[in-house]
């Protein structure tokens, strides 16, 4: 089955995102080795997971306190 890759032509939707890209973060990444880039990605993902866990724990505490207050 033949595959066709689209050319990289201007796309207004994609282009609309470009001014919002923080290139300082990208430039820092480009200074790293490939392994360092994935180590950084791993830390980023773990940080997000910790925030999700903390947020969940906070919400559960709030719900528990609200339930106690209503008794």
């Amino acid at each position: 089955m033949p595959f066709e890759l689209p050319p990289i032509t201007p796309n207004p939707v994609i282009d609309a995102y470009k001014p919002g890209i923080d290139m300082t973060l990208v430039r820092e990444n480009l200074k790293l080795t490939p392994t360092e880039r994935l180590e950084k990605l791993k830390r980023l993902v773990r940080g997000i997971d910790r925030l999700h866990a903390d947020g969940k724990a906070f919400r559960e505490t709030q719900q528990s306190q609200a339930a106690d207050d209503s008794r």
Partner: protein
Amino acid sequence: MEEFRDIIQALTTHQVNGILIGGVAGALRGAHRPTRDVDWLYRRDPSNYAKIVEAVAPLSPYLRGAPPGLPFCFDEKTIAAGGNFTLTTTAGDLDLLATIAGGDYESLLDHSDLMRVFDCECRVLNLTTLIRVKRAAGRPKDFEAIAELERILEELDDE
């Protein structure tokens, strides 16, 4: 568990023919965007299925999102009968892909480079082709990621 490392090391140590694509490939090309699954475009060939099983079976693969307890057997027969597999493993999420929008292993091999990652030699889709396959997929959720990759390409072209 070491995210990304254990899966990449397993696949490369067992010499699985494949190309790293998707968000992890984007990160290797400089993108700063969280992703948690390894996307591996594998060569459709029985000898490669055997290597995939040797590499991935020890990581207890299971169909991501499927109810627990299904009789899922990750072996060469399953890979031959299937195509794209989205898996959970003990080392993180792994997408084993036979084809993607824009290509398969054979058609994209010449658009990849060998990169040294975690002390392994790993094939990674090049930046321009990463952008083009993401454009071919046409998923709105990718638009911001494509924009970032294109900004990286512009940045590197300016150097």
